[in-house]
């Protein structure tokens, strides 16, 4: 790949839009070309500046109420029954999981996908019902003890405010039919839910999933399952996961 090609595709690479082969070709070129490497650095700096400093206007709570009230009566016109069933199955989280456990899980991959789906449903519900946190605190030393006595395991709580992911609290949730800790972090105006529960009944394993416009990244570590869910881009969520994992004692 020469300089012209590199400059043309540089932004696409920073945006994570290049296929692996081209991405690697570009990486090789950037290793050997200082001018292009500087341009790549500038492109990344621009992306970071825009993501962190442009205003994302939040909707007022009054607008949400207005919209709810303006919608015709509930359930009168529920379309696409198959889809609804799926959503309800996902939304009823543990129900589907219990059935699945009862019949014995399929492959690990299928289980992982199912858990990620549940985590996405938990995430959506936490945004929906204004029940984001049971304990609202930016202090890991407040959030961690709060879970003690409520759960049979101790979720690792780490502070990532310096890296741009402030902790805003914790919540009790449920996944795969088991009680789970939900740590709530913020990235700009976006919420990240990190669900943590014991892996004794089945590991979620490492995986990335995309569902309904949300990104989910899962892993299993020290006997615990983790799924991070958010609407932030997958690359950013991966960054969050890497930072979190680096700081878990």
């Amino acid at each position, binding site marked *: 790949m020469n300089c012209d090609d590199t400059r043309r595709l540089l932004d696409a690479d920073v945006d994570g839009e290049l296929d692996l082969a081209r991405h690697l070709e570009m990486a090789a070129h950037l290793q050997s070309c200082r001018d292009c490497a500087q341009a790549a650095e500038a492109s990344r700096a621009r992306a970071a500046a825009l993501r962190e400093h442009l205003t994302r206007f939040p909707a007022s709570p009054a607008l949400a109420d207005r919209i709810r009230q303006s919608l015709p009566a509930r359930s009168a016109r529920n379309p696409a029954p198959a889809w609804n069933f799926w959503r309800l199955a996902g939304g009823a989280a543990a129900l589907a999981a219990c059935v699945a456990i009862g019949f014995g899980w399929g492959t690990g991959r299928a289980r992982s996908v199912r858990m990620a789906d549940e985590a996405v449903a938990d995430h*959506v519900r936490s945004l929906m019902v204004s029940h984001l946190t049971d304990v609202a605190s930016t202090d890991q030393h407040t959030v961690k003890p709060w879970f003690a006595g409520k759960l049979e395991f101790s979720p690792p709580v780490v502070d990532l405010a310096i890296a741009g992911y402030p902790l805003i609290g914790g919540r009790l949730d449920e996944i795969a039919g088991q009680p789970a800790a939900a740590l709530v972090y913020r990235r700009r105006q976006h919420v990240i839910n990190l669900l943590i529960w014991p892996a004794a009944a089945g590991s979620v394993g490492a995986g990335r999933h995309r569902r309904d416009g949300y990104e989910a990244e899962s892993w299993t570590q020290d006997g615990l399952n983790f799924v991070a869910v958010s609407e932030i881009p997958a690359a950013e969520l991966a960054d969050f996961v890497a930072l979190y994992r680096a700081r878990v004692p």
Partner: protein
Amino acid sequence: MGESVPLPAQAPAPFEQIMLPHLDAAYSLARWLLRHEHDAEDCVQEAYLLAFKAFARFRGGDGRAWLLTIVRNACYSRMRKSRREEPAVAFDEQLHGAIEDTSGRADFWQRADIREALDRALDRLPAEFREVLVLHELEGLAYKEIAAVAAIPLGTVMSRLARARARLQAELRQLTQEDSPR
């Protein structure tokens, strides 16, 4: 394990469950496109009603991109009616025929005055440019999703983003020079 888990007392209707979590994304896009708080609120409410009526055609997938498409179209028809905004892309195609330098130097983007001027600079761009930047930089949509939301081909997404970034940088230079004449 094996116990059934209680459902929420009244599970929200699927439409609300899928679409209301995207309200901030919807409002932010409308606010950036219309540049007016109340217009944006009215427009988003209108878009949610339209989305509700069209929900039978939603077959899963990315609920946010689907909703943003409707919000975007509602904003454009409002802009067309009020004629507050003329498309300015044609002018810009000529100005930035060659796309070379869209980002300048890294330290430019790390300057405090540049970061503070970002909102004002974006506000000065034509709607088509504000749109792709908001969808990409703020909402994190992939090129393919932007193509679907803005109803433009994938290649156009790339070139429009490149031009939008170059224009943004030019506006930032101008704004920060105006701010601090040296």
